[in-house]
């Protein structure tokens, strides 16, 4: 777990540990969702990172808007070969940050020709309607109220899926009705809107894990949350999901 304030590219080190290669690793597989998370709070960064990884995303976490722009290469003129391979599928950023706010970061991303298509999600601990509206007007895809929960991240994951092309012909059934923009209000115990449920949810609506993912992903099967909405593992390539509780209390059912 990264404890410095800089960039933590955890996925990279995991890829290296399974002999995929070092920094010169091949381009990210189109199946793998790569999320850039931006938050000045270390605790929140660790939590959002884990939430994303447990839903099978690769994560790069940075501690400021400037570092985010640096990582994306938006703020520098020179093109880098590395950047051609940079694939960011989602940017999730805190709103209140010193220096550059999440809103300012959002604007810069939407001004960039390379990254304006990337969905940007704003997180905030404050449920301020004007703030939410302003972000949505500026092009934010969604607005999450902190503290962020697994259900929130899963919902994000679901609407990302429909944009991810499956390259190996292993077609997944994608949700027919993609959910309209929904705002995550602070109703901690209410379930997320069920519009992400596909009627045939026995088909996975998230990418099947590639062999790389199976060996390097910390969690083979994303757990079902209490709402049992989307089955997030593919029957073909992963074992059936094991409820987390079972792993912890074998003798106390």
């Amino acid at each position, binding site marked *: 777990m990264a404890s410095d304030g800089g960039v933590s590219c955890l996925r990279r080190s995991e890829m290296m540990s399974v002999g995929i290669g070092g920094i010169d690793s091949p381009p990210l597989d189109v199946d793998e969702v790569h999320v850039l998370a931006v938050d000045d709070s270390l*605790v*929140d960064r660790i939590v959002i990172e884990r939430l994303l990884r447990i839903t099978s995303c690769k994560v790069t976490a940075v501690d400021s808007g400037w570092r985010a722009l640096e990582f994306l290469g938006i703020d520098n003129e020179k093109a880098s070969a590395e950047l051609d391979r940079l694939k960011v599928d989602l940017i999730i950023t805190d709103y209140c940050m010193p220096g550059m706010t999440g809103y300012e970061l959002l604007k810069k991303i939407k001004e960039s020709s390379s990254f304006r298509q990337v969905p940007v999600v704003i997180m905030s601990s404050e449920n301020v309607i004007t703030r939410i509206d302003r972000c949505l007007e500026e092009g934010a895809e969604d607005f999450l109220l*902190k503290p962020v929960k*697994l259900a929130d991240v899963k919902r994000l994951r679901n609407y990302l899926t429909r944009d991810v092309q499956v390259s190996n012909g292993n077609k997944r059934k994608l949700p027919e009705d993609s959910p309209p923009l929904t705002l995550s209000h602070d109703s901690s*115990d209410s379930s997320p809107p069920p519009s992400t449920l596909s009627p045939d949810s026995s088909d996975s609506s998230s990418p099947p894990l590639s062999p790389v993912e199976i060996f390097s992903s910390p969690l083979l099967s994303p*757990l079902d949350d209490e709402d049992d909405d989307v089955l997030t593992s593919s029957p073909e390539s992963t074992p059936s999901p094991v409820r987390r509780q079972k792993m912890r209390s074998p003798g106390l059912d």
Partner: protein
Amino acid sequence: MELVQMQKSLQDYTKSLFLDGVLDSQFLQLQQLQDESNPDFVSQVVTLFFQDSDRILNDLSLSLDQQVVDFKKVDPHVHQLKGSSSSIGAQRVKNACVVFRNFCEQQNVEGCHRCLQQVKKEYYLVKNRLETLFKLEQQIVASGGMIPAMELGF
């Protein structure tokens, strides 16, 4: 103490923290993120929270002890503490921070001092309770047992 007894103690202890409002459902969210590949996730995040909070409380004490209190400095600290305590489910700390921010907004120095004391009180309480909880977990694991899942009807 027998393993089963230890596990029951842990469950009862954890439950009491929820019933007392010391922890809220966000703590359960963190527990859901822990698994055999990340077996210490909760204690790692909580430890970071403690380190962060110790620093913030120190800074707050210093800021409030100034002749002229700079609320532009005080408020961001409280905001930060509110955020991180909320993220780990330390409900009473978070609530104390909310009150604190109100007094900051009013630029009420006396009120802020009282709030800082309250925040510290709640913080040391949750710190103490969580450290006890982690010790109980360690004892169970050391005895070869598994941590029982929390079955809560919250």
